[in-house]
C-alpha cells in the first residue's frame, strides 16, 4: 500500500512499502489504525515485505564468515556451508564468505527470485545478480589465463562484470546447469568473476541484473 503525505517543504510525497518517514503522533495513529503502516521489527511487518521464506536458505561458500546468525536470523533463513556454489534450497542465496551483506538484502534478493508473480501468474526470475561497480570490465580483472579463456568464448573482454559474492538463485533445470558449470570452473581454478561470466555464457538463465550499488541501497523495513 502507498502512503501520501506532506513533507517538511510542503510537497506531497508518495511513500512506498519499506520507506521510513517522519510524522506527528496523531498522524501516526491514523495511519496505524487504518492499516496503512505497521510498526517495524514485528513479525507481521517482516512477512508483509518478504512473504514466506520457508523454502529459502543461504549457502555460505568458503570459511570464516562470522555473521551467519545475524544475516540469517532476522528472517529465519536456513543456512549451510560449502566449498563451491550449489543449490541446497529451492531458493538459495549463494554468499561468498566475507562479502558484505545485510539481513534485508539477503531476504529481498530471495523475494526477487520467486517462481511466479502472485498477482499476474507470470513466471518469475530464476536468478538475481548485481553488476560490479565503477564500470569494471573483464579485461581489468583476473589472471592472463582467466582473460584468455573468457576472450575465447566472448570474443571481447570489454564485458561488464557481475558480482559473484552474492547471487540469489531459484532451483530450476537451467539454474542447476549454470551453477554446475560455475562450480566446475571454480574447481578448475578459474577466477571467481571470469568463472561466473563463462558459466552464464554457456548456460543461459532468466537473470535479473541488479544495478551496481544495489546492495548498498536497501532501507530497513
Amino acid at each position, binding site marked *: 500500500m*502507498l502512503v501520501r503525505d506532506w513533507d517538511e517543504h510542503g510537497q506531497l510525497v*508518495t511513500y*512506498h*512499502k519499506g520507506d521510513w518517514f517522519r510524522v506527528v503522533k496523531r498522524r501516526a495513529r491514523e495511519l496505524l489504525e487504518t492499516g496503512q503502516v505497521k510498526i517495524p521489527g514485528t513479525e507481521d511487518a517482516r512477512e508483509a515485505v518478504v512473504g514466506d521464506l520457508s523454502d529459502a536458505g543461504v549457502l555460505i561458500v568458503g570459511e570464516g564468515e562470522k555473521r551467519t546468525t545475524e544475516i540469517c536470523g532476522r528472517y529465519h533463513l536456513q543456512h549451510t556451508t560449502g566449498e563451491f556454489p550449489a543449490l541446497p534450497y529451492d531458493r538459495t542465496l549463494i554468499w561468498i564468505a566475507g562479502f558484505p551483506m545485510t539481513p534485508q538484502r539477503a531476504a*529481498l534478493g530471495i*523475494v*526477487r527470485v520467486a517462481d511466479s*508473480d502472485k498477482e*499476474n501468474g*507470470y*513466471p*518469475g*526470475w*530464476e536468478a538475481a545478480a548485481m*553488476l560490479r561497480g565503477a*564500470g569494471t*570490465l573483464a579485461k581489468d580483472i583476473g589472471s592472463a589465463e582467466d582473460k584468455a579463456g573468457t576472450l575465447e568464448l*566472448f*570474443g*571481447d573482454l*570489454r*564485458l*561488464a562484470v557481475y558480482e559473484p559474492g552474492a547471487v540469489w538463485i531459484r532451483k530450476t533445470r*537451467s539454474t542447476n546447469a549454470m551453477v554446475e558449470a560455475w562450480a566446475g570452473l571454480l574447481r578448475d581454478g578459474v577466477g571467481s568473476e571470469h568463472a561466473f561470466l563463462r558459466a*552464464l*555464457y*554457456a548456460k*543461459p*538463465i*532468466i*537473470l*535479473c*541484473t*541488479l*544495478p*551496481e*550499488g*544495489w546492495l548498498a*541501497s536497501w532501507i530497513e523495513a
Partner: protein
Amino acid sequence: MAVGAKAAVETRLAIQALRRYHRDWPVIVAGDRRVEGGRWKEFLDTKGGRVARWAKTNLNKLSPFDQTLFMDADTRVYADVEIGFRLLSNGWDMVMVPSLPQGGDFLWHCTEAEREATLIDIPIDPLQLNTGVMWFRKCTRVDRFFAEWRRQWLRYRDMDQGAFVRALNRRPLALFTLSKHFNGGAIVGHRFGACVG
C-alpha cells in the same frame, strides 16, 4: 529505424559504419522512407505517440530474422558486434546495455506519473536498460515480452524505456547485460539526440 529526414541521414551513416565490420549482414530500415543501404519496411503507425517509440515495441513483428540486432539511427559501429549473436545462439533471449542514468536519475526523461508508476510496479531498485542497441531472438518468451512491452507503452504513449522495464518485470527474459562500450562507448557509439528535431 528512420522516421523523418534527420533520422534518414543518421541511418545511412549508421549503415555505412556497420558495413565496415559486417559487410554481408542484411539490413532492414523501418520507417517512413527508403534509406540507401537498407531494405525499406514502411511503418507509420503512431498509436497517438511517436512512430519510432511504437515501432520499437513492434520489432519482433517487423524483423524477419531469427536473430536480430536493432540499433537506433544515431548509433555507430566501431568494432565487431557479433558478440550479441553468439549469446543468442547459446540460448539468451536478449542482449542489452544499461543506461547511463540509474538510481536517482532512473527514467529521468519520462513523466513523473510514469516514473512513479514504474517504481511502484517493481519491488526493488530496477536496472534501466537502453533500448538503442538490442539483440533479440525469435521465440515464444520474447514474443510474449514484446506483447507486454506494447501493452505497457500504450499506458503513457511516450518514452519506451519505462514501458520496457515494467514489461520485463512482468515477463522476465534470459537477458544478458553487456558493458557500456556496446552502446555509447568504444564499440558502438551513440550520438544521443542526433535524430531529434
